[in-house]
């Protein structure tokens, strides 16, 4: 690492960047103080949105100046990052970046770079966006840092295997693969030992890159912070059980960025503590997220990032609140598995259990429980063209809800970030018909 880059990093990120972003946040907070109800049906965004914008901008700013100043890891969304975090890596989540490209409607432009290079449109749009960004340098966040190491964990899908191999080949950097066996009910001791061994093998590789030794004290601290933030996130989401709910799943999709990107850092813990406070304030004042909440729904799968706001409005106009989602829950429900006293073993156990690494029956059970816990009237299953593992089994899951449990359920075809696989008119028509069923 060079002195010049380190100085530049300190200057641009910690001195100028922080000051500018903090000033912008204060300005945004002032503006937000006068925010009105959106389209007269949806509560104003949380005040803390300004803070989130600041944190995420700072995160990408750190990335922009990271090369030469800090070692950089690109990781999958469900990757065990605690070891890398304890070693001081800057961690970039290409999936989060791709979601951001989706929300800013940049996917088609960036993904086309990958498609023009020969990557099929049948591949996940996150992968295409990431590869497109790597090939072209296009990004709405200024610049993405080059990775020094790649970490792919198979607990979310198999696409990451091939996607990260492409990245490893392109950037000529080591790829660490953490293979997580599929878990139907509960992970066996052998499964945990197998993943733990891979984590142990990852340590020297990562140490070699940073030139530092992993301090177990630091690792325990990171695990502790991860656990605390995840717990708080779970608390935030569980506030959706309140009738009427003080938040929507769309709020969850927006405010999940820190739990994904800043997990293991004190700032994420502080953030969710504040968010919880703001939500409780809303409950106290009797401010519902959706005016005249008549119907409560749960959402399955990733959001449609490029239609987030419109979808929130569409449902709210029908007096419906999507109160929670299996997707946002995935970053909270495993909090109890984290144990700082046994960091590696508990990290192995935790990362074996994401909803996507378990059977479709488990997901059905989880959703059914959610319907009960959140007093929901129906389920919306987003059949996501890009995310095959998440969408697999949804037709049967929907049938179970409708025919066995008597809960109306809608299958909505779209894509998490590629608008070319989505039709406004058809989606709205399906939602309207579904709401007509719910209203009787």
């Amino acid at each position, binding site marked *: 690492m060079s002195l010049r880059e380190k100085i530049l990093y300190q200057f641009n990120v910690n001195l100028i960047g922080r000051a500018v972003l903090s000033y912008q946040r204060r300005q945004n907070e002032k503006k937000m103080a006068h925010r009105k109800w959106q389209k007269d049906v949806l509560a104003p965004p949380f005040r803390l949105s300004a803070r989130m914008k600041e944190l995420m901008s700072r995160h990408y700013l750190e990335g922009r100046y990271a090369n030469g100043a800090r070692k950089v890891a690109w990781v999958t969304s469900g990757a065990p990052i605690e070891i890398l975090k304890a070693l001081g890596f800057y961690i970039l989540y290409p999936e989060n970046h791709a979601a951001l490209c989706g929300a800013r409607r940049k996917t088609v432009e960036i993904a086309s770079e990958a498609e023009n290079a020969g990557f099929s449109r049948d591949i996940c749009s996150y992968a295409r966006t990431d590869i497109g960004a790597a090939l072209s340098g296009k990004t709405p966040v200024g610049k993405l840092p080059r990775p020094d190491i790649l970490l792919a964990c198979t607990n979310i899908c198999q696409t990451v295997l091939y996607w990260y191999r492409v990245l490893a080949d392109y950037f000529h950097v080591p790829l660490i693969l953490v293979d997580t066996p599929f878990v139907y009910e509960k992970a066996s001791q052998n499964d945990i030992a197998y993943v733990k061994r891979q984590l142990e093998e990852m340590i020297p590789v990562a140490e070699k890159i940073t030139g530092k030794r992993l301090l177990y004290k630091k690792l325990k601290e990171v695990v502790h912070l991860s656990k605390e933030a995840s717990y708080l996130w779970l608390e935030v989401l569980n506030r959706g059980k309140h009738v009427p709910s003080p938040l929507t799943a769309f709020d969850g999709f927006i405010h999940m960025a820190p739990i994904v990107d800043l997990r293991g850092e004190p700032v994420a813990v502080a953030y969710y503590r504040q968010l919880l406070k703001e939500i409780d304030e809303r409950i106290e004042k009797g401010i519902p997220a959706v005016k005249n909440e008549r119907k409560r729904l749960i959402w399955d799968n990733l959001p449609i990032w490029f239609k987030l706001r419109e979808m929130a409005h569409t449902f709210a106009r029908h007096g419906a609140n999507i109160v929670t989602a299996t997707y946002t829950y995935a970053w909270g429900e495993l909090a109890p598995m984290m144990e700082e006293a046994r960091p590696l073993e508990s990290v192995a156990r935790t990362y074996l259990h994401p909803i996507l690494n378990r059977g479709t029956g488990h997901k059905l059970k989880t959703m059914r429980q959610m319907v009960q816990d959140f007093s929901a009237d129906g389920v919306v299953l987003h059949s996501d063209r890009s995310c095959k593992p998440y969408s697999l089994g949804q037709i049967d899951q929907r049938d179970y809800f409708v025919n066995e449990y008597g809960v109306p359920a809608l299958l909505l075809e779209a894509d998490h970030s590629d608008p070319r696989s989505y*039709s406004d008119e058809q989606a709205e028509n399906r939602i*309207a018909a579904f709401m007509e069923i719910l209203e009787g």
Partner: protein
Amino acid sequence: MNEEKLAALGLDAGSTTCKIVGVNQSGGMIWHLLEPADPRVEDQVAHMLEEAKKRFGSLEGIPLVATGYGRKLVKNATRNLTEITCHARGVYHELQKPGTLVDIGGQDSKVIIIGKEGRVIDFVMNDKCAAGTGRFLENTAGRLRVPLEVLGSTALSVNQEERISSTCTVFAESEIISMLAHGVAVEPILRGLHRSLITRIVAMIRSVGLVPPLMLSGGVARNKAMRKMLEEETGEKVHLPSYPQLMGAYGAALIGLEKK
């Protein structure tokens, strides 16, 4: 009670045709008008309402329920509802039984499970393409120069059937072009084309689960081959309302009555 007195209007601004239906207080259809859809939806709606005025005089106080893709453009509608709810209500009122309704329209197809009182229990629609819709037939019929009205009877005029493997409208057309280039006659191709569409519809029926009786509405219900093949593929008799194409507008008018 005056059986000819207008009590409610239903307007279905569909993708291929625009329909308006008038009902009396007991829900009987007393008037209807059907026109090919005009791209200027608002003008067409205004013109159809004018026609209603000519027939019934003032429409003051008469509920108007709009449905179909253009429903949001019917500014003076008392309510607007999806075709799914309206078709279910219309067909239920006419056939007086719950069951499975297949509605094959110009732009999309739906399978609707109808429960008590014509309420929708569940539905499934074709995905984001023209496969499984009236457009699929219309497109290829044009290519084969067979008028839409005789499409079904032409397909049924032969026993031989060419297999068309693609359900995609664009790919099916190139498959057909290649068959024509090999000297295959038009009729067996048409028969195969109907089969391809029905296979797609049957898959949709299976995905929600068939609750007999099986009913058919939408413009494509007029096609004999579709009815026959649907019966062959499902083993169920197909029940037809007297005006399959008008069921959306009819159901809308009936809902207008309820809300009065």
